[in-house]
């Protein structure tokens, strides 16, 4: 029951506000989609929900500004990710959807003397001072993950010059893109993704943080991804994400440390000057990726309401 509700919420949110059938305006033949049948029975319901909600069809429309052939599929991978290889496809693993659901806010919400509030808190999680709904905690990381994996394909197909580690660049690009559909969407998806990464890190941290296989992986640590996400968010909207900046209270691991904030926000004073990481990504995206997109379709995508209020 829990899974049904949360996955539905996730997928409904992903495609909410738009017609379920691909629109003619955004139809895109070069983006092929496949829902692979999982071997593990537990992933069957996930597949069914993804299909019912036409998640890949929606993604197909969202990716319509891309002008190269791209295959996107959902599949059982044997791990949370399957590494993207040159030429694709982009794969969304059932295991990752399952992971998102496994760390959702549950019955252990914040305590309150008010019974009404207690009931409400049962469906909320917390990250620092922020309350996170189950929808935010589902939609945010799912969308971020899809944008991350798609970014890898875009880098590859468009031969985008990527300085820095590839998966950091994919996360930075995903975070940048989350801001391109309005501040409300950015807030919900980034808070949700931050909640997910924080919870995920908590479940794997002990015993793994000094493991050479974890530190030597092609991906950053989960907590590095968490801070990278916040870095882009605070760089773009320091007020909207100020709850991740410890002012007048002790710094905790969910806060972006002061030293990092200086780089995230940028500085043009003193002995040193830095451009914010958000601005660096915006400039890079504008010069290396944007010129290779279909401008008309991009406008339509930006004008589409992909996630409901």
């Amino acid at each position, binding site marked *: 029951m829990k899974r049904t509700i949360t996955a539905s919420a996730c997928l409904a949110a992903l495609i909410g506000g738009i017609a379920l059938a691909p629109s003619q305006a955004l139809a895109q033949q070069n983006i092929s989609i496949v829902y692979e049948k999982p071997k593990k029975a537990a992933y069957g319901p996930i597949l069914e929900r993804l299909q019912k909600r036409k998640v890949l069809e929606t993604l197909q429309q969202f990716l319509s500004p891309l002008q190269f052939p791209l295959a996107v599929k959902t599949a059982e991978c044997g791990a949370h990710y399957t590494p993207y290889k040159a030429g694709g496809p982009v794969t969304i693993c059932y295991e990752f959807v399952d992971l998102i659901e496994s760390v959702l806010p549950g019955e252990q919400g914040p305590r309150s003397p008010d019974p009404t509030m207690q009931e409400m808190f049962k469906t909320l999680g917390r990250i620092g001072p922020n309350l996170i709904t189950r929808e935010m905690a589902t939609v945010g990381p799912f969308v971020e993950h899809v944008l991350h994996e798609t970014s890898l394909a875009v880098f590859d197909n468009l031969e985008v010059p990527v300085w820095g580690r590839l998966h950091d660049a994919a996360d930075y690009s995903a975070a940048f893109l989350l801001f391109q559909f309005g501040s409300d969407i950015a807030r919900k998806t980034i808070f949700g993704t931050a909640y997910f990464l924080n919870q995920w890190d908590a479940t794997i941290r002990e015993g793994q943080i000094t493991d050479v296989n974890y530190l030597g992986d092609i991906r950053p640590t989960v907590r590095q991804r968490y801070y990278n996400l916040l870095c882009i968010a605070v760089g773009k909207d320091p007020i909207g994400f100020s709850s991740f900046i410890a002012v007048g209270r002790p710094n905790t691991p969910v806060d972006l440390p002061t030293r990092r904030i200086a780089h995230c926000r940028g500085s043009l004073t003193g002995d040193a000057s830095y451009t914010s990481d958000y601005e*660096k990504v915006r400039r*890079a995206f504008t010069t290396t990726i944007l010129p290779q997109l279909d401008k008309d379709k991009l406008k339509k995508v930006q004008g589409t309401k992909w996630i409901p209020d």
Partner: protein
Amino acid sequence: MNRIANRIATAGALALVLGCLVPRGPAAAQTPPVLQNDMIDIEYNEPQSAKYKPIYERLKQRKLLEQLETFLSPLKLQAGLILSLEEGDPKACGGPNSYYDGAGRVHLCYSWFYFMDTEVAVERKRPPNEPFSSTSLGLMPGFSRSEVLVGGAVSVILHELGHALFQIQDIPLLGREEDAADQIAALLMLQYGPRVALTTIKGTYNAWHHMNAERLQSQKGDIKPAQEADEHSIDIQRAFNFLCIAYGKEPAAFRELADRLLPRARKDNCADEYKQAALAFRKTVLPDVDQDMMKEVLKMDVLRPDDFK
């Protein structure tokens, strides 16, 4: 006596690096171009601390900054660049450090060279039968003092020059700048043959291993979230990043090291990591390199025989 200075032939190294990445053009002009760049100034700032004076004398006598200036002469810089050897502000240069200030000045702190000389490139005694581990300091087994002095110096110089290039040339950055600066440093070290590459990469790896071991010792073997929040990767991740790019470019030369030090899954990705960095260099740096001048720069000597000991 010129212990450090004699081991740093950065200009020649960089020259070869760039040269291998530059497509070979038509025959060289009859008159060799003058290897000067009016956009670059150099400064040897005499230290107040007596412990740094021998380093100052050696580097000045070695004409390190003149070599760097010559090496950088093919670059069509969009703004002025100052290369400064200095004791610097205690806040910035007090510990082992060097930095680019975002305002056109690369600060090469004596503290970094001193640290390599007195802490990292030093054989430490261990109790009998105690194997070298992640928390062991100093020279790694199979690594030499010369390698650490050369690699430790070249890597930090190239890293900070990388920052300068990114800002001055307005190079698009989709990923994290600190990792990008390490990438450009690694890429440059690898372009003049496996022998020089082994010397510089091994020294760099050892330097980051030492830094990581120091931190692990001070934190009782743990990695704190604050480290993961830093704009730099964790020290051992930086070591892996350098070695992985090297293995990706020169698998034969680095196989033994990679087998010993890199996780298997990471090794499989190293060729792609090198290609990624090479593509980024070709697309974002090379267009601003004068190839005729580069041919002349390529004629410079690289490391000296003592450097390979």
